[in-house]
């Protein structure tokens, strides 16, 4: 249990009430270790996004607990929870990650600016170098390709050196080349920058980049795999 970056304990999330109630998370217990790259997989509607949103402080559980580090998110009001998202968590959405009126650089440093903090020059430089978009920093999102936009989003998730970075199908909208580059970036973030990354993906190839895969089905953890390869993941998926 030591060094958990994020953790869910008996996490239950029920949408709606009565007849139409949907149990998206059905008593999920899961821990994501710091300094590792994890993937969450599972069929559509199995609760992957819900789990990720609840872990990242974007949504609240119906019952159970989620922790970022040892901070219980359930006990926080909106202001504190927002600050957690800003300072301790990085989040990469599938699309529409950037504010259209801000430049790439401004988007990248947005969490810091919102916190009223100055970016750490050295860290920022290393992030920008890793992203490889040094020449596009002054551009507005509309002038960037999809891959470049996602890389800026990765940069924004990294810039605060958060405790954990979540990505909900961060490469879901990209061609395979861009997709591969973004995954490499995330891998680098873990290996070279010491970050913790959790992504949701449907792509066994993407899962191959991870240290560990957690399989979700009908709102429960149904399986998990350490040091996965694409082939093993494909074999596991055939079981469903």
């Amino acid at each position, binding site marked *: 249990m030591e060094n958990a970056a994020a953790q869910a304990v008996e996490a239950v999330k029920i949408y709606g009430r009565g007849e139409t109630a949907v149990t998206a998370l059905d008593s999920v217990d899961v821990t994501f270790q710091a300094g590792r790259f994890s993937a969450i997989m599972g069929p559509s509607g199995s609760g992957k996004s819900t789990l990720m*949103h609840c872990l990242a402080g*974007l*949504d609240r559980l119906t019952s159970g607990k989620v922790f970022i580090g040892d901070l219980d998110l359930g006990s926080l009001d*909106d*202001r504190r929870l*927002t*600050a957690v*998202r*800003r*300072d301790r968590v990085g*989040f990469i*959405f599938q699309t*529409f*990650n*950037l*504010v*259209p*009126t*801000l430049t790439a650089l*401004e988007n990248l440093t*947005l*969490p810091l*600016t*919102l*916190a*009223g903090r100055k970016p750490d020059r050295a860290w920022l430089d290393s992030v920008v170098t890793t992203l490889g978009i040094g020449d596009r920093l002054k551009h507005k999102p*509309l002038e960037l390709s999809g891959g470049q936009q996602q890389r800026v989003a990765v940069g*924004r998730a990294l810039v605060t050196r958060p405790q954990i970075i979540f990505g909900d199908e961060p490469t879901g909208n990209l061609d395979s080349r861009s997709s591969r580059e973004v995954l490499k970036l995330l891998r680098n973030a873990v290996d070279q920058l010491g970050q913790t990354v959790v992504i949701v993906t449907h792509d066994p190839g993407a899962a191959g980049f991870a240290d560990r895969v957690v399989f979700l089905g009908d709102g429960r953890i149904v399986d998990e795999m350490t040091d996965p390869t694409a082939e093993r993941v494909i074999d596991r998926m055939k079981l469903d």
Partner: protein
Amino acid sequence: MFKATIKSLMAHKLRLALTALAVVLGVAFVSGTFVLTDTIKHTFNALFQQTSAGKDAVVRGVAPYGGNGNGDFNANRPLTPESLVATVRSTPGVTAADANVVGLVTLLNKSGKSVSSHAPTLAFSWLPDRKLSVLNLRRGVAPSGPDQMTIDNGTAKKQHFNIGDQVTVVGNQGPRQFTVVGITGFGSTDNLGGATVVTFDLPTVQQIAGKSGYVSEIDVSAVPGTPSATLLSAIGDRLPKGFEVVTGAEAAAQQANAVTQGLNQFNTILLVFAGIALFVGAFLIFNTFSILVGQRTRELALLRAIGASRRQINMSVLGEAAFTGLFGAAVGLGVGVGLAAGLYSLLSALGVDLPRSSLQFEARTAIVGLIVGTLVTLVSAVLPALRAGRIPPAAGLREDAVFQETSLRRRAVTGGAVFLVGALVLAVGLFASAGILAVGIGAALVFIGVAMLAPFAVKPLVSFLGRPLPALAGVTGQLGRENAVRNPRRTAATASALMVGLALVAAIATLGQSATASFNGLFDQSVKADYVLSAGGFTTVAPAAEGTLAAVPGITAVSGLSQAEWHLGRVGKQVTGIDPVAGPQVMTLDMVSGSAAALGRGEVLIDSTVAKNDHYRVGQVLPMGFVATGVRPVVIGGTFKTNQFLGNYVISSQLLAANVNQVRDQLIALRSAQVGPQMTAALQNALHSYGNVKVQTAAQFKSDQKKQLGTILAIVYALLGLSIVIALIGVVNTLALSVMERTREIGLLRAVGMQRRQLKRTIRSESLLVSVMGAILGLVLGTGLGVAVVSALGTSFITTIAIPVTTIVVVLILSAIFGVGAAVWPARRAAKLDVLEAIYTI
């Protein structure tokens, strides 16, 4: 397509509600004005009909220049000799004929002050035949003899007058004591629209408010069943030339008309402000429909793709506008009625005792309201509708189908052209005196032109104004600024609505400031008096006060200034009467030709510019037509340099008195050996029993006049207030729509850690910038407009151009505050958005 329109209306009902609100307010202003004035008119008509029921005929002098023009009852027709009463009375068929006298006096209350500082006190003769009188006795007895009078119940109640009280009435000869013997009503009400009414017996009222031997009119009642035509011709046959007989109903209708004359002007003024409010509303409507069309680009493109024609799309948007307009107008009509009812009660509460009457909602009010409301909405939606029709079917396939800036160049050209044409029309209206309508149309075109050009100013202006924001409010300020320049057309249209209202404020303020600044100089040039005495509001001073003042030790010259209307042919003009000796000592009469002494010979002095333009020479005879006495040949005795306080024609007060029904002084000007508290006290003491005279040194008078100008300005600002409110609703509306449009972005910002507080601040920054931009455009434009108007008026009472710096700064600060205020609701909505729902909105 009709179904699509309805669906769209339902889907956007919240967004359209604010649009409809602009129509509601504008139409409410229009209908409220109509209902109020119609009701007051109706009330007076009914009242006069009721009170004239017993009058079968009225004998009076023929009004030489037509009608009951100026609302002064009988001031604009010659008096009737009292001797004619007997002639009328002896006419076969006549059962009673009473001499009726109407004049103005001042009635003092128990603390020695005039009972009303703004409305006149009317003195009537008591008509012995009760059937003939407009007044009925509520208590007590009829006045008889030189020291009895009656008072209307309204005034009696307010001033606690009772039967047996001793009161002072200031009449033609000055203050005089009377005993109240009766309390009267006017039909079913206590008084006549707030005016105080006192009555005396005939000889008494002739002394204090008329002329002995003369009456205002003769009221006649006839043997029941006498045909009106028979009665009129029987009396008419006995009347000398210059007199006429009309039915009581006709006379009543004319009197009601005279009382309500002023209402028409009041009506027009209110409608002008309602028009301004609707004009501002048009910007809001235009903007909302533009935004809605923009937001529905994909949906409309889809409709096009599945076969809807361009025309059908146009009609769908226009249909939505028609519904919104009609709905807003209908609600507005209702609100207007409520508004009128409220104002009616307010007037009553302020002491204008209006008879209880049901509100008059005429068909015209409904028709005008509905048409105006719908038309304004439709016209404002035409451009957005056309734009909607031009959306290509392929636009549905692109996610980021933003508006194209293709027509920027054309917009610049059209906007510039509209601006120039407007400026031209305005200039013609102002400098070629083409009339107020040209000024209005010109100003409207200038506003539209500037609004069309405004998008070009958005980027530089907002970037400049927003420069301190990031430093002050960090990234929220920066985002607010970026959002404001994001869609320049939208920001421009929103700001433009505010611009119109504030431009008018600035223009009026410039006029007012310039008038104030000019006043000192004009006064010093025109007036030599050390003291200027005046009565408040619309009341005047009995000329008898002049004699009393002349007797005060240290006073070296006293002259009243009284004004009368006269006619040159059919053209109405004003003449001022002054004392022939003291007048030139208290007023500047800078003679160009002839001499001021001519006044004493009963001659007229003319402004030298007027004399030059009209080719008058000294010694020539000017045929001055007075309503009371007809055409008098008056010799031109001299010409003088323009004096704004004297006007174009000056005669002696004696000549004036001889040619009007009753003389009342607007002002009394004095020269005194010394000026100071002691002299002021002495003068006040001398006029103690006059009750309503303000004793002011020249300096005090000047500052008092400026204060009065300030009051008028305040009223105009209040009337413009509605337009500004509508413009602010426009800011709220645009922000709310923009927030809706940026839902996803807001979700994203919240997801990466923007606090609600910060989000609100972002929206407030945007609102602040849009409002301040509108204010700057408006203030610059309005000050320019004001300067143009002032220059056009240059030759008359405004001589200096003064920029109202304080007002401008105050308006700017208020705009900033209200701009931030306008963001409260949209910001709260934005902050309430659920982060995940927002971010997954399509």
